[in-house]
């Protein structure tokens, strides 16, 4: 079991090793090959077309903000990448392969809904699912292993949740639970991180911390990130490009190219004004 853990998050204090991430990921994706390729992808759910002929490419190490109004299909897009939803047309390639469930190269934190249950689980148990929750067998025999706990605690520390490690998950606030889910997604050191509105429940200081953490992983480990958000402003200093979804269509590009009155008006099919004030961008005229 311990060899499986060697590649994962280093315990606190250990120097980050960019090389430890090479191994398996490199074989699957030579550096030139895109991480995500969508070509003419359409998705229909319950008889409605959610995404229509969406085409884009995302390269290794890119930090992408996924934006768009409620119901635009942002979560749906992530589920397509995870292999949970099958597109009705078009091709999707991840690391050069078709999407499939259980792809270890992907870390995923879903759009938040409060986790509760009659029977509680400690924060560290929840985060630990990211490490070995999918494996058969009880797994608690060598007392969980000190090494396993060190990995979990390192991940908890990254999201500033070490103090919550032994608390019942059901007693934590929405933002605290959200941080646990991010830690869980990071635990297997994925090459591609899909985060569905990870910032929605966070206070300003944790929002900044999580953005800084993800940007750091992106820069130092070459992790590719798709982060769904409703506000691009806190992300502007760190993202490479934005993927804007609306009415089933997608626009991708640098923020200053996509978040403009002209591009968004075309995407929404209605007049939209992008206003810059106090160093922040505001989209006016539609429900964003």
């Amino acid at each position: 079991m311990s060899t499986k853990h060697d590649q994962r998050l280093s315990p606190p204090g250990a120097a980050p090793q960019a090389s430890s991430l090479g191994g398996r990921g490199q074989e699957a994706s030579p550096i030139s090959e895109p991480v995500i390729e969508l070509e003419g992808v359409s998705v229909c759910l319950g008889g409605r077309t959610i995404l229509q002929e969406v085409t884009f490419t995302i390269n290794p190490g890119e930090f992408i903000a996924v934006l768009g109004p409620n119901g635009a299909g942002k979560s749906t897009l992530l589920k397509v990448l995870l292999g949970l939803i099958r597109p009705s047309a078009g091709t999707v390639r991840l690391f050069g392969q078709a999407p499939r469930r259980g792809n270890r190269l992907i870390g995923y934190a879903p759009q938040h809904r409060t986790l509760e249950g009659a029977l509680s689980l400690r924060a560290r148990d929840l985060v630990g699912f990211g490490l070995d929750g999918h494996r058969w067998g009880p797994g608690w025999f060598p007392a969980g292993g000190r090494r396993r706990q060190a990995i979990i605690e390192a991940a908890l520390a990254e999201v500033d949740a070490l103090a919550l490690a032994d608390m019942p998950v059901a007693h934590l606030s929405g933002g605290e639970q959200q941080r646990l889910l991010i830690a869980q997604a990071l635990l297997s050191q994925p090459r591609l991180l899909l985060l569905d509105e990870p910032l929605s429940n966070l206070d300003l200081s944790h929002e900044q911390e999580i953005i800084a953490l993800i940007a750091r992983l992106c820069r130092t480990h070459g992790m590719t990130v798709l982060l769904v958000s409703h506000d691009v402003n806190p992300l502007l200093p760190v993202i490479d490009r934005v993927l804007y979804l609306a009415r089933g269509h997608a626009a991708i590009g640098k923020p200053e190219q996509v978040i403009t009155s002209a591009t968004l008006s075309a995407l929404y099919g209605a007049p939209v004004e992008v206003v810059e004030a106090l160093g922040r961008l505001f989209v006016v005229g539609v429900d964003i």
Partner: protein
Amino acid sequence: MISLLSYPFIQNAFLAGTCIAIVAAVTGYFLLLRGLTFAGHALPNIGFAGAAGAVLLGLDPLFGLLAFTIGAAIGIGLLGRNLRERDLAIGILMTFALALGLLFLSLYSGYAERVYSILFGTILGISRLDVLLSFGVSLLILVSILLLFRPLLFSSYDPEVAEARGVPVRLLAVAFLVLVALTIAIAVQIVGALLVFTLLVGPAATAGRLALRPGAVILLAIALGLLYTWLGILLAVLSGTIPVSFFIAFLSFIVYLPVRLIAPRWQRRPQQPGLLPAAGAGLSQQASAR
């Protein structure tokens, strides 16, 4: 009392009861976790209809019980995750099965003692063969749950992420409910269809309020289940006429009640250390980010 324990049928009741208490506590834990308590109530009732049907056909009621509970378990497992819709479907299925059971009973002209014992359970007439059967099936259930443990726990708490991580969530849901059906089939002989629910859910519900980690909750639930079952059988033997299921349900209730009232004190969240410095750090960070 010691002399009572030397009767073979009482020994058999204790042995079978021990197996049943252990598996019921373990499967009951996952039933609670997965929000399937209503299914845990419905399955034995559906099984009762099957047992009544088998009696009508002159078969061993256990076969009818197994056929109906396993069939319903697979159906419920495939129903999906939407809790409200699922419980509605289960309710309709259960009432339909109960109606069938009623029909079978009214068509049956013979002496319905076997049906009565399916409903309320009995500690009389548990043979060595029954004990061996209970032991074998319990072992099968426990080994299966041990093998499925981590994915089952993961998919109980967070089916969406579990599915994305490659856990076969649907298949697990069905497999787990089949294990519940098997648990019910062996438990019914002692505690009866009407009160199997007590042994499934009572120990796990109480343990869940006292312990925090899954392993500890399960062990405590097993201990409570054994306590209720052993005491229940003992009291039933001493009383002579009152069925064991009454005592088990009664014990389960009087332990749950005070725990329910008092336990929140243990589970209150501890004071978070270092709250103020963290807030300060956050402020300075915001300032620098602008």
